[in-house]
């Protein structure tokens, strides 16, 4: 591993961006610039085609944030030629937009108070990020795809790997920060057709590592194939409340939907999250601990500072069953009179900052999976994340999971039910947590939206945990 290199492009633009800030300072009380250079390569092999393309979240651009008359506005662009002309364009465009909005009451926001910070951050990355052996990576993915396709009834198996190199520069009157890191993503899907039915399953992993992460997927295929075959002809689960053991993937989805979205504090500003009124309340069983943070783990949503120049934190959201903290971007923090937690993130330089999750997970305890299964009279082990939806206003939760494996008298019966919709009331679900496993596993192969847009890369996870919840 080596230290990630800072983007030469950003370093080259830095003097012009500083000049831009200096010019705009004449008209605005606060000016900052976030510059992004995100690059990477995605490799994909399935039984029909091969591709090598730029990583889909790649971008290079800038966003200026300014403050005037008690409010903030922003201008996104991706070309710098003449700085004076650019400054004039920004000033003219934002002033014209202010004119259109003139007369509308403003949500007064205090001027951001920044501390002086001049720092450079670099994560450890594999050397191959700068000189990848594309042929070797594709060959490894081909082997994985071929292995997956060799099982009976598989109509296609695709293996993919992406490496993402992120570099971001944040400049304001007081801050001069640059960061760089690299992340790897891999996944493998198996598609089977049998008795007129099609079913799908996948495995994957992510982390601050290199293409060796692909190697770990070979060993997962046997079980993934078995799970896939079990889904054929599997009945729907009879609706009801059951004792449920959640796999780390399912645990992560619950963490994300429950007190991930539920404690995003820009929702507190809008009075859209009931958690605001319950800080300090006991809402989970005493063995429940939950965290969010770009700091503390090395996953796909780890960074050194967020898109507003706030240093990354590790925030404990639930401590021994008590809701102790939310997560917050800088503007929402200013409005709420609290400290930001480094959770101000943008989908891209073209979009607004919202409070967003980073790496969200339950903490571990001492129970083994075997102990949990033995403790269940009748219930299910649920696994495989499909999708989820939050309801921070009412603490409703919906998690769509791939399968539920039946447990009877402390043993897995081998019977599987699909699909599985887990619904319930978040405090009930968390208060019903009676056993928590030992090993925290995070996966960051997904994007998270705010409502139905603003997609950012997140990771989530945790250990196996046992609770009681409604399945249908």
């Amino acid at each position, binding site marked *: 591993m080596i230290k990630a290199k800072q983007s030469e492009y950003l370093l080259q633009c830095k003097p012009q961006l500083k000049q831009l800030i200096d010019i705009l300072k004449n008209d605005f009380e606060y000016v900052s610039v976030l510059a992004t250079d995100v690059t990477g390569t995605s490799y994909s092999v*399935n039984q*029909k*085609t*091969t*591709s*090598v393309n*730029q990583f889909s979240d*790649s971008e*290079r651009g800038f966003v200026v944030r300014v403050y005037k008359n008690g*409010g*903030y*506005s*922003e*201008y*996104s*662009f*991706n*070309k*710098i*030629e003449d700085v004076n002309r650019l400054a004039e364009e920004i000033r003219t465009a*934002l002033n*014209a*937009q*202010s004119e*259109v*909005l003139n007369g*509308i009451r*403003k*949500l007064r926001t205090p001027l951001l108070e920044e501390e002086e910070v001049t720092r450079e951050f670099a994560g450890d990355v594999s050397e191959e990020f700068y000189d990848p052996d594309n*042929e070797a990576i*594709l060959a490894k993915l081909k082997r994985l795809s071929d292995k997956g396709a060799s099982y009976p009834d598989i*109509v*296609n198996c695709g293996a993919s790997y992406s490496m993402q190199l992120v570099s971001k520069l944040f400049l304001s009157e007081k801050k001069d920060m640059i960061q760089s890191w690299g992340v790897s993503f891999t996944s493998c899907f198996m598609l089977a*057709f049998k008795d*007129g*039915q*099609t*079913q*799908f399953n996948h495995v994957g992993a992510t982390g601050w590592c290199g293409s060796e992460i692909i190697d770990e997927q070979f060993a997962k295929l046997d079980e993934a194939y078995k799970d896939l075959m079990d889904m054929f002809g599997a009945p*729907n*689960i009879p609706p*009801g*409340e059951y004792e449920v053991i959640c796999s780390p993937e399912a645990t992560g989805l619950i963490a994300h939907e429950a007190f991930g979205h539920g404690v995003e504090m820009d929702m507190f500003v*809008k009075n*859209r999250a009931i958690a605001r009124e319950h800080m300090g309340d006991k809402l989970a069983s005493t063995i429940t601990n939950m965290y969010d943070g770009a700091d503390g783990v090395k996953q796909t949503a780890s960074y050194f500072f967020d898109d507003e120049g706030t240093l990354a934190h590790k925030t404990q959201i639930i401590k021994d069953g008590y809701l102790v903290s939310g997560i917050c971007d800088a503007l929402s923090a200013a409005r709420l009179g609290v400290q930001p937690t480094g959770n101000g993130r943008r989908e891209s330089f*073209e979009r*607004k900052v919202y409070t967003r999750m980073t790496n969200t997970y339950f903490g571990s305890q001492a129970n083994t999976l075997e102990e949990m299964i033995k403790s269940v009279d009748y219930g299910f082990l649920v696994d495989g994340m499909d999708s989820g*939806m939050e*309801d921070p*206003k*009412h603490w*409703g939760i919906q998690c*769509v999971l791939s399968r539920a494996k039946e447990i009877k008298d402390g043993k897995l019966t081998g019977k599987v039910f*699909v*699909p599985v*919709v887990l*619904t319930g009331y978040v405090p009930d679900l968390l208060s019903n947590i009676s056993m928590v496993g030992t090993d925290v596993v995070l996966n960051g192969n997904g994007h998270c939206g705010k*409502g139905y847009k603003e997609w950012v890369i997140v990771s989530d996870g945790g250990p196996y945990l046992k609770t009681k919840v*409604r399945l*249908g």
Partner: protein
Amino acid sequence: MLERLVKLLNEAEVSDYRIVETTTVSHQAYFVKQALDQHRISNVTHLTLEVNMDSEVNGQKFRGKASREIYQGESDEQLKADIENLKFNALLAKNPYYEIVKDEKYYEEKKDYNLTAVFENVVKAMQNVKNTETEKVNSYEIFVNEYYYHIVNSQGVDITFNTMDEEIEIVINSIDGDHEIELYHNEKFADKPIEEITAGIQKIFEYAKDRTQAKPTKKMMGVTVLMSGEDNRSFFRYFLAKTNTQSVFFGNSQVKIGDNCQESEDCDKITLKLVSHLPHSSRNMPYSKEGSKALDLTVVENGIYQNYWGDQTTAYYLGLEKASPANNYVVESGSRTVAEMKQGSYLEIIQFSSFIMDPVSGDFGGEIRLGYYHDGQTVTPVTGGSITCNMNSALKHIYLSQETRQLDNCIVPCTIQLFDVNVAGEE
């Protein structure tokens, strides 16, 4: 920039290339209640280059492609390095040969959308949404966007046009004593009369009021369900997913043209057509980014799959003469009126928390955010609980309403009637 890139590509001995230049100007405003949170402008140009490289192994012809964004202000040296890198990667991706779109020429005089005026109109309309005593605007976001496209390739494609769209995301609260609920609504459209937008928001006010009265959904077995919400468009996207050339080529869909997905007679037969242009749709692009002309195309007729649609590469692999993008779609109305459907006892679902449609397995459903349970005499607003169904069985016994509605880029029946549905709910 584009001319410089084309010149370098012509010197670089690539087999084929395609460039898509997109300039987006976006005006955005964010509100908490009716107070301005912040406002934004985005003015960006993205240029995406795709390079094809052909090769031959044992007499078999292969074609690979690789693509990346070309950044604004790149020097000739950087552009040459990008092209060489793409050539190298395209040669690694040895795929069956296909042809890119040829000789499409289209030039549209740039339409003046007057983005500032459109933005001002939407802001004014939203500012005029009045709270009632119990229903209140919580927050909303406005996006007004203009897109300019220039698509060229090495086989004579040269297409230029511009489009626009608007988007509103709004959250409504309703209060009943100490109980406060919210409903979320996101709507995309283009050039739509502003009174239609605000009328839609007033309808959400009504639903929000009902949700404050909603009781937990009870567990029910084998009930009739009416789906009457905006998720009906996701329901019908199942047929688009099943006929997409990528899905078929890669094995996600096993659908063959001529297959009948509704052999039962006890149902309304599905007919779904792609339409290249639909008034007020945000998706009216005359050409795809590959240079394929948007076509009117019947995808399913009376339950029988008629045509695939999709991208140029997989369309070529499936032996189609032309690829067709799916901008807009229209589902034909059914045989029953909504009033006829609302007989006896049934659960009508207006909004799911998140409607799931898995086109691979055909499973669909989700948690109920707002529904109405009719027991034949009384109507009870309900919330919570969920339904899980499968398309293969649902299509055997399904009815569609005669009434249809437009939801951005599609026209779909207002109500879908499903039978024998199990509802997970309070016991």
